[in-house]
């Protein structure tokens, strides 16, 4: 099975290790991720905030996937949510025609037939295969940062429980790692707050890391570049606010890969220098 890997700005820009680990783990499950290099920004939160043109940008990516006759795998919550919203809206024939009249100028068209799934959804669909691949069960306590837009809002995401999601926990527990419950587990990480208020974003990240650490977690597992951007890239600023709010950040496929018996290098662990104490 082949899928197109939509990296999104956050991952191609900052987290090559997430890309490397996702490819390695899905490859082990028999899913080949094809590079999707001519993509544009999904539209993120920025373009829908300025006007209606966001649908063209999102549809362009969907149209490219259709042309290659492949479904898309996403790695971040925001891209997943934007694409799924676009797919839902494109069911409207009048809008689809409007979008297609513009895409026609680029010799493209969109029908909405290319599926969009976040990595966590793909892994969940492959649950039995994941279970069979576990060769080195992990003895590690981790906390989970559930990727908001993968399951919320419910009418867009159509995956997992929108308020108390369980898919990520089920996946992590297959590895033998213990996903500790912590008071702020189901809260958003707050990464997008950084866009307009760095202090609120940092304080939100500190709250979560501290809550997870106090519950006994030794690592924070994430499945979205935005969450990693806050917890990992802002670790020094978080530490400056709350010294003890520190945890190594692991992407979900890195955790799974370790349990599959893969080496750290195959999973890009050396790139951010992740060390699990």
């Amino acid at each position: 099975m082949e899928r197109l890997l939509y990296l999104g700005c956050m991952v191609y820009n900052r987290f090559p290790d997430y890309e490397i680990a996702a490819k390695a783990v899905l490859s082990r499950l028999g899913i080949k991720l094809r590079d999707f290099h001519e993509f544009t920004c999904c539209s993120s939160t920025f373009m829908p905030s300025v006007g209606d043109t966001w649908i063209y940008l999102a549809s362009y990516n969907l149209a490219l996937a259709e042309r290659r006759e492949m479904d898309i795998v996403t790695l971040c919550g925001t891209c997943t949510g934007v694409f799924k919203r676009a797919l839902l809206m494109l069911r409207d024939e009048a809008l689809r025609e409007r979008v297609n009249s513009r895409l026609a100028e680029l010799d493209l068209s969109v029908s909405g037939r290319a599926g969009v799934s976040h990595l966590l959804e793909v892994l969940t669909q492959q649950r039995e295969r994941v279970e069979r691949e576990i060769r080195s069960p992990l003895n590690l306590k981790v906390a989970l940062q559930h990727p908001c837009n993968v399951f919320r809002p419910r009418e867009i995401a159509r995956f997992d429980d929108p308020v108390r999601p369980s898919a990520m926990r089920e996946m992590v527990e297959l590895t033998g790692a213990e996903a500790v419950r912590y008071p702020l587990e189901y809260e958003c990480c707050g990464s997008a707050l950084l866009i307009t208020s760095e202090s609120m974003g940092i304080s939100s990240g500190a709250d979560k890391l501290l809550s997870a650490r106090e519950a006994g977690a030794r690592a924070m597992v994430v499945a979205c570049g935005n969450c990693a951007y806050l917890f990992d890239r802002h670790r020094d600023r978080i530490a400056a606010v709350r010294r003890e709010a520190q945890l190594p950040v692991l992407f979900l496929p890195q955790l799974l890969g370790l349990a599959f018996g893969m080496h750290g290098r195959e999973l890009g662990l050396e790139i951010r220098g992740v060390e699990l104490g």
Partner: protein
Amino acid sequence: MGECTRCGACVRVCIAARQGLATGASVLERSDRFTCAGCWKCVEACPEGVDIYGLMMQSRRYRELPESYKAAVRRIQSTGYAMPAEGVNAIREMYGLRPIRRVRRRVLEKLLRASEPER
């Protein structure tokens, strides 16, 4: 879609409110519409089914964008990506990843030009 009754359910689950953002009885009443984590817990919490996402986006379009939004929109318009793309391919090459091909300006101009008025 329902109407807001100002019950406060959205504010109680709002992470920006928890971090101290001044807000009224509803997230749709706050003056700062941009300091938002985009987690949409408010959408799930609303007992009236108000289209908070739609109303939030609509209201942003009538307000002055924060500088950080303007910068991201400019980057999307000029490079196709929200994040800076300079130097990325050198890093990708270092890790054996294939380069990103930048989208042509002509493509972006077509995709992002203002919508034609409805006929």
